[in-house]
């Protein structure tokens, strides 16, 4: 390994370390300021996610969903396409998946979930592709269009969930449950962790191979690093405006699909809110590298689980997790590490 690479890796590790340290400090500060008994809140936040199978299982289930969302954000970012429509794509993916399952209640128990997941992925993919195509044919910034389209789609999904698909026997604003035959089996009851983690990990490995070992992945990364160079060596610009956006949308859609098939078994109004944005945070922490999505997703899953535990067990609201996430965001993007390393060099 040469010196350049080593310096780069060192910089990234340090960035991550500073972000984690900063997030930890912010969390401690907030808990101290907001809770009446700091000791209890501290213990709940940091220990509870590992405290019992319920918390642990729920956390791991969320990590799986965040891995998919992170992959979705990362594949777009890696090619310099900006998909900010994750929120709508996850939600639509879950609604389409649930609708497919509910429409074929007596279908083949293997075929229908597969079909439903593919339909969910396709629906998300369609949204992503639309923004890519708008950029290509009309010059509409995909960053703006994906965000706006997604914002509208969220309301459309709300309507579908509380209207045509509303479960009349439920007091919640939610669809009816999907048939048991279509569900991934629970691994750690009563938590929502299920065998859905197996296909999620398979998708993770597939994406890692796709990006690191194939022509598609190579061309995609060249587009991301320098689009003018990519055009110069004859890479199809149009394809790499639309395909990564579609793939990104598909992964987001899959996140929604597995949320239904693996964790919740139904769609509740707004139940996926935040997954799209957290996916971006995951991709940011992972530096778009597929295999790094797993630890990055774990970080955010852990923060979320800790916040939930604190909310239930102590007098701190769940919003604390948004603040901590924001702190991680800022620390990661501010590139303190680069400056720190540079400063140390000057002194030497």
């Amino acid at each position: 390994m040469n010196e350049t690479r080593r310096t780069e890796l060192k910089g990234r590790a340090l960035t991550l370390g500073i972000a984690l340290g900063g997030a930890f400090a912010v969390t401690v500060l907030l808990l101290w300021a907001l809770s009446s008994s700091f000791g209890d809140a501290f213990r709940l936040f940091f220990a509870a996610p590992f405290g019992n199978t319920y918390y642990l299982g729920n956390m791991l289930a969320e990590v799986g969903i965040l891995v998919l969302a992170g992959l979705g954000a990362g594949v777009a970012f890696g090619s310099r396409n900006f998909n900010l429509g994750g929120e709508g794509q996850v939600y639509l993916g879950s609604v389409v998946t649930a609708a497919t399952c509910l429409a074929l209640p007596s279908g083949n128990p293997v075929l229908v979930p597969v079909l439903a997941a593919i339909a969910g992925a396709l629906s998300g993919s369609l949204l992503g592709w639309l923004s890519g195509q708008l950029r290509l044919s009309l010059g509409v910034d995909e960053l703006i269009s994906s965000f706006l389209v997604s914002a509208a789609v969220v309301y459309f999904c709300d309507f579908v969930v509380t209207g045509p698909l509303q479960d009349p026997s439920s007091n919640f604003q939610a669809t009816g449950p999907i048939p048991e035959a279509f569900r991934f089996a629970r691994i750690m009851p009563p938590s929502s962790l299920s065998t859905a983690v197996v296909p999620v990990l398979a998708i993770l490995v597939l994406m890692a191979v796709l990006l690191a070992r194939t022509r598609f992945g190579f061309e995609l990364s060249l587009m991301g690093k320098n689009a003018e160079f990519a055009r110069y060596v004859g890479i199809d610009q149009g394809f790499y405006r639309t395909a990564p956006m579609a793939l990104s949308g598909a992964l987001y859609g899959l996140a929604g699909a597995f949320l239904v098939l693996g964790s919740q078994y139904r769609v509740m109004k707004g139940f996926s809110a935040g997954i799209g944005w957290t996916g971006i945070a995951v991709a940011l922490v992972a530096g778009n590298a597929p295999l790094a999505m797993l630890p990055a997703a774990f970080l955010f899953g852990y923060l979320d689980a800790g916040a939930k535990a604190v909310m239930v067990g102590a007098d701190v609201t769940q919003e604390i997790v948004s603040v901590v996430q924001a702190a991680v965001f800022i620390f990661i993007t501010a590139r303190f590490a680069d400056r720190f390393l540079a400063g140390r060099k000057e002194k030497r």
Partner: protein
Amino acid sequence: MPALLMEGIRKRYLTSGARANDGATLEVRDREIHALVGENGAGKTTLMKILYGLERPDSGRILLDGKAVAIPNPAAAALCGIGMVSQHAEIVGEFTVAQNVSLCAEPRRFAFFYDRKAAEREVGRLAAENGFGLDPRVPASSLSAAEIQELEILKLLWRRASLLILDEPTSLLAEHEVEGLFSSLKRLRAAGKTIILITHKAAEVKRIADAVTVMRAGRTFIRLSAADLAEADLAGLMMGAHDAVGEAGGRPATEGTASGSPAALGTGVRKDSAVAGPAVFEMRRVTVARQRRARPSIDDLSLAVRSGEIVGVCGLAGNGLAELEDLAAGIGKPTRGSVLLSGKPLPRRREGGRGYVPTDRLWRGSSLYSSVGENLAALDRRSFFPRGFEDRKAVGRFVEESIGCYGIAGSPTQRLGTLSGGNIQKVILARELAEPKRARLSRVRAAAGRAGFLHASSVRASGTRDACVEDQGPPFLLFCNPVQGLDMASSAFVHGRLVEERDRGSAILLLSSNLDEVLELSDRIIVMHRGAAVLEVRNGPLVDRSAIEDAMLGLASPEERR
């Protein structure tokens, strides 16, 4: 007493670990034009960046008029009366000349409002005093390379700099423009300014400098007054042809290392006359229109390049060369007319069959944040990703081969952006001149089959070992300003490869704003002026250089002039 003395300057770049300056010393006297010469990477620019406060030295000291000064940043340099024009123009295209010159030091009205009239008046006066014909009211984007150079100098004078540093000021200028720049510099010297000129063109030093400092490998190699130095010696000193440092005080007379006629590039490439074959690349009555009333950027241009010949197109900046480059690369579209490769319309996306060395080698020609290996493998993706998956062995072999054959100073995993300009150009050449691996394999197989010994092992062996010699380049090659900003050793290498490819039968279109380069390499010369081909001549020893220069300037054709 020298006006400027830099002593024992050391600077090591931490990212690359390279010692850019390793005990450099520079002594510049008051009111002299001092040339700082050396190859790429000799440390000239670093030394000047230290003087201008852009870099901090690890050790060493700077004395101005005998007093030690600290220059931590360009603002401090400006206070000391030091100004620098960097290699690449730093102007705001949308701003007028007056705005650019007065930027951050504007005349104010009521101490707050920008006083446009005063700025234009004062800038105009300053320009006139120094013999610059700049109109302060025109936008900077409409200026020629020479006028931009004047603008940059004016910026320094506006800030009352008395020590001017110019980094490679002539690299983008045509011959007559260099003349103009040099007479301005002489005028500035007469007005009491001290000038440091960074260059690697030995010929220019003789014409202008009062004293020369030669740098090599980060050290000051020798300081001489220009009159003492025969030109061949200077080139030799820069190139390191005489390795005994001790004898540098004398004047070792080695002939022909890399010298040339004073005006020539002096890369010393020689070639036999061409044996031209059928036309490979053709442009038929091509026009590229711009907005409605502006004249077209390419105006009814026709040209053909045959296999085995180099067609050199030269012209001054802004006369259609850039647009011609995009057209021939398939990136730009003609408004009218057709561009043909082997008789068929030129495909917009490249899929083998043509190599292209672009003018903009840092942004278009390379992916600076990718590794050397990725840059090399970026073009021939069909061979390196059979059925969509990477053939790591083939890529590794090709990358090793390229690094070996082209003498690229870098490792396959190193980020390309950390390489020097000359090495980046070598990476581009290695990629663009390579024969697609699949094509090579089938050709080698066919040859082996004809010879009657078809063994897989022998095919593979001949595919790797003799790759440097065996490769058959693409049938059409587009070279655009291939040696701009390169030192002599790299330039000679690039020109050598260019002629080699021609001799193997490639059709080569060379676009260059450097007339010497075109004269040295071309079999035919086309001169562009205002988007049109105004002159086409066969190159040879008797070619009329001044007629070409006149054509580049758009002066009437020789017959009419008389």
